């Protein structure tokens, strides 16, 4: 019970101090707009809102979570306030779950914004919302733990952003959102299958447009595996690097 009081208050503190700040809320709104506009310019014709929705939602989650978490943890680590959390009598796993839950929540909200906007323009009645929500949640969890892994690996905020891009941009271009994986050069295809976003985007494609090509249960399992692996690697790195 005592640990859960700490968990809840760390989560609330992060929501208030970081995620619900006006600049971050506006980021959550502007970012999906920017992506939609980019697709529109690329198509040079009427944009297929429903067709691009899985991509915009996935990228909104990926960029929202990794950016926020990499900054907040690195920033707290630099100002030494993170030490205060490490010295609290709660387990490291619970502490890191508390620190990441806010980002997961922020990521899910980021994905909902383009869906809400799209609902005003196109008919979204055929979508399997349950599967779509689960996939958004799993993309958010995986991306957040990727952000955690990045923030644990660096010491400066700018390093966190640079290192994030090292993961984000290959994912963006190789996960099948811009170019279908089947159309990628044979050499690059294996890389696509080791990127978590490939599986998250594919479930979203299946649930929104029915054009995914991996069985959703496989994608769910792979995303769960990625999440677990990234979380364990991050906590291992914290034990090794921060409790030295």
């Amino acid at each position, binding site marked *: 019970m*005592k640990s859960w009081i700490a968990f809840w208050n760390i989560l609330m503190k992060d929501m208030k101090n970081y995620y619900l700040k006006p600049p971050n809320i506006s980021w959550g709104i502007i970012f999906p707009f920017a992506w939609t506009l980019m697709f529109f310019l690329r198509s040079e014709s009427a944009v297929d809102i429903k067709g691009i929705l899985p991509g915009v939602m996935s990228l909104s989650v990926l960029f929202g979570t990794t950016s926020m978490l990499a900054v907040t943890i690195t920033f707290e680590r630099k100002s030494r*306030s993170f030490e205060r959390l490490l010295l609290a009598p709660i387990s490291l796993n619970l502490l890191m779950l508390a620190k990441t839950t806010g980002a997961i929540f922020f990521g899910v909200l980021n994905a909902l914004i383009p869906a809400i906007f799209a609902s005003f323009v196109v008919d979204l009645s055929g979508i399997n919302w349950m599967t779509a929500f689960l996939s958004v949640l799993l993309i958010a969890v995986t991306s957040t733990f990727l952000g955690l892994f990045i923030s644990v690996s660096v010491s400066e905020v700018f390093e966190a952003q640079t290192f994030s891009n090292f993961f984000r941009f290959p994912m963006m271009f190789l996960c099948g959102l811009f170019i279908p994986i089947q159309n990628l050069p044979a050499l690059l295809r294996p890389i696509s299958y080791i990127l978590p976003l490939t599986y998250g985007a594919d479930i979203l494609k299946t649930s929104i447009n029915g054009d995914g090509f991996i069985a959703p249960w496989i994608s769910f399992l792979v995303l769960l595996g990625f999440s677990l692996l990234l979380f364990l690697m991050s906590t291992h790195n914290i034990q090794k690097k921060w409790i030295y």
Partner: protein
Amino acid sequence: MNILEVNNLTKDYGGFMAVKGIDFSVKKGEIFGFLGPNGAGKTTTINMLTGLTRPTSGSIILSGIDLVKNIKKAQGIIGIVPDESNLYDEMNGFDNLTFCASLYGMEKAKREKRAKELLEQFGLADTGKKPFKVYSKGMKRKLTIAAGIIHEPEILFLDEPTTGIDVESARQIRKLILSLNENGTTIFLTTHYIEEAERLCHRVGFIVDGRIVRLGTLDELMQEVQNEYTVQFTLEGGLLNVKEALKSQFSDYSVSVLGDNAVKIQSSSKVNLIPFIKFFEENNIMVYEAKVVRPSLEEVFVKITGIELEKMEKEKEGDRK
């Protein structure tokens, strides 16, 4: 009764031994001072005692809990005030305190009541609703101490509590430390202000190069310089011109020239002042004052470690910059 027992504690950073098998204990209810120059192993030791660093070997027993094996249980009864005020800039004083209390599982009503009491006790009630970032250095330090004790720990680790703050705030913090101790909190204090340790601590340990070189009550440590007599002269000026002559004429004594107008004479026997006064008279230097200086912990420290305090303080200030 000991609240903290440290046995053969060692920290090896891949070939660099920061702490070399130290043993000491802290009695329940005392203020224990841990003194040493930069790089002596103070921070590494405090980090091992609080769970931020894993010992390479040795044992730490805190209130009957094996800290190495059960760190999270031990952290529940520890309060920590780091050498930098590391609270949250965006949050106000009250929210910072209640947040810190929540990390120890305190219920909302209890933590809010305690936060109000502490803000009152620490003279911060008027600024409790202001963001931490607008606090002065002294206020930040006080709030950080309040955050360290909000969960009523059995032992409080205070790392350099008065470094870098104004004289009045430092005085207030010393009073707070004494009042916390009077109320039963055991305090583990690291400081590079030796006179602060002398004023506050019941027992002191000196750590140099990863080893504890002396440990004891203030009286026990003072025994080291009990047979030393020190006289300090305050003069009109012009001392630097006769510095060498003074030293050679009084070679039986240890003569330390403290600038152009002060000199310190140390001896293992009582100092006869007349020859000194004659010397100054012959050299047309007026003597304003001659006083017997009581041996201090500072002298014990210098004698044991061979480290000049001025150098130590400069190093510390340099690190902060």
